[in-house]
């Protein structure tokens, strides 16, 4: 059986998978409808990434090489994006890299503004990055790291089969909605309080029970019976 592979112009933004896991509507507003509003959090994120995202910087620290702003793609997931940092660690079980002596194992590190989240929105993004690297270099990667700026610590992430399955199903769903151009209705939740798009989304509007047609009819009939 041949595996589904996406074409170049079908690829979706990898970073969208974290939006999608957080809220499908938020993802659709950003990636289908192209609505985006910066708020404090996203701006802080930009500042953090400005330092991380220098593609020309390559550092070497003994047996570790650090590559920044690493371009990624997976035609199986249909996602493309950029990893903040990919570390290469010298290892006998590694692969050879163009222009480098020896064998290396790959280890992505994703920089995050805040602290670890209660849901898997960061995990699915990092796991998708891992799956891109695996496909690009034909390797197996069993773990990756977050660096959370708020707690100033690295958090280790084990890439489990469950997490991989979640990424595959989320990516499939994203492609399905994108193809149909559908923005799912809002699910009002705690998340809305932290959403930079809440003013664009207006979650209570999609759940609104008042029909716009009835609203118009009512105002017209009120106007027609009302005396000045």
């Amino acid at each position, binding site marked *: 059986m041949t595996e589904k592979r996406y074409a170049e112009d079908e690829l979706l933004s990898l970073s969208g998978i974290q939006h999608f896991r957080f809220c499908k509507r938020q993802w659709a507003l950003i990636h289908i409808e192209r*609505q985006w509003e910066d708020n404090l959090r996203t701006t802080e994120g930009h500042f953090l990434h400005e330092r991380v995202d220098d593609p020309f910087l390559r550092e070497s620290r003994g047996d570790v090489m650090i590559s920044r702003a690493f371009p990624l793609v997976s035609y199986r997931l249909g996602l493309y994006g950029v990893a903040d940092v990919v570390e290469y660690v010298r290892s006998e079980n590694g692969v050879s890299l163009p222009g480098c002596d020896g064998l290396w194992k790959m280890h992505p590190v994703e920089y995050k503004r805040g602290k670890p989240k209660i849901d898997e929105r960061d995990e699915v993004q990092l796991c998708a990055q891992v799956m891109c690297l695996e496909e690009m270099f034909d390797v197996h990667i069993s773990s990756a790291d977050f660096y959370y700026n708020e707690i100033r610590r690295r958090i280790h992430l084990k890439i489990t089969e469950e997490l991989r399955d979640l990424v595959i199903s989320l990516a499939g769903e994203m492609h399905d909605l994108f193809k149909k151009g559908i923005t799912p209705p809002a699910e009002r939740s705690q998340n809305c309080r932290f959403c930079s798009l809440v003013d664009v989304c207006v979650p209570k509007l999609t759940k609104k029970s008042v029909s716009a047609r009835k609203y118009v009819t009512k105002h017209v009939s009120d*106007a027609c019976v009302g005396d000045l």
Partner: protein
Amino acid sequence: MKKLLNTLYVTTPESYLLREGENVVIKINNVEKFRIPIHNLEGIVCFGYMGASPQLMRLCTDNNVGLSFLTPHGKFLGRVHGRIRGNVLLRRTQYRKADNEEESLDLARCFIIGKIVNCRTVLGRSIRDHGDVIDLDKIRFIDSLLIENLQSIDSCLNSDSLRGIEGNCARFYFGVLDELILKQKDDFFITQRNRRPPLDNMNALLSFLYTLLAHDVESALETVGLDPYVGFFHTDRPGRPSLALDMMEELRPFMADRLALNMVNLRQICGKDFFRKENGGVIMTDDGRKEILAAWQKRKQDKITHPYLNEKISVGLLPYVQAMLLARYLRGDIDGYPPFFMN
């Protein structure tokens, strides 16, 4: 709800706008006169010719700040905007609906219903506030005509007959608006609407407020990703922002007419703020324009409860809210377009 940011109106013709860091800086004869961080702004409107630096234009497009250039008299010259925002699928839905006569008519009805109901409310408000000094019979008669037309909207079968209804109502309404001008009757009167050029002070005042409103509505439509040039009531005409004009119909009485009447009745503006040219056309003086802009800005800060959303918003956000509601309808989130009805 989205925050209402300020619009910067630059009225001194010798002003040059440039960028310093994240700030908009205004210089006159190379001397700095004013500076404001870009993130406090929603739009910049220049009534002058000196211009703006390309760096500043970039700052505006990066921050989604509309930058428009108008003649000192408020005639629109052009605007700088960045990449087309929003969703191409939404715009295609808009075009498809605009091409479909039945669906266009359905939407056009909503805009005109909003307009007529709000015109009635303007008349009603004056009766409530000043019933003892105005010609009640005349206003009530006109109002009965407005109601008659309003009732016939449902049964009108094509856009031409809807245009007929709209034309009638506008004529009735402007025919009686003079009754609502209570002070400075020698300087301010209106018998009919005229605009190219406006032939009296009141028409000049209304024209200028409509220009300001048009600017805000056009920006709002672009913000939500709609094409301001493809309308449902106003048909396509190159250079005419038909959808912005559609949406203005329901907003004019509340946002512009009411404000014009208040400014005259409260003597916030007076006869010497206008100037009659040899051809009979009336233009505004610099002072007059400043007064109107100040009143417009102040009015936009007022809070109202939106009757459909049932949420408190500032008057200045109305164009944005209506644009958002229209986008929601086109996307199928709500079952119709709810126009704004003033109370």
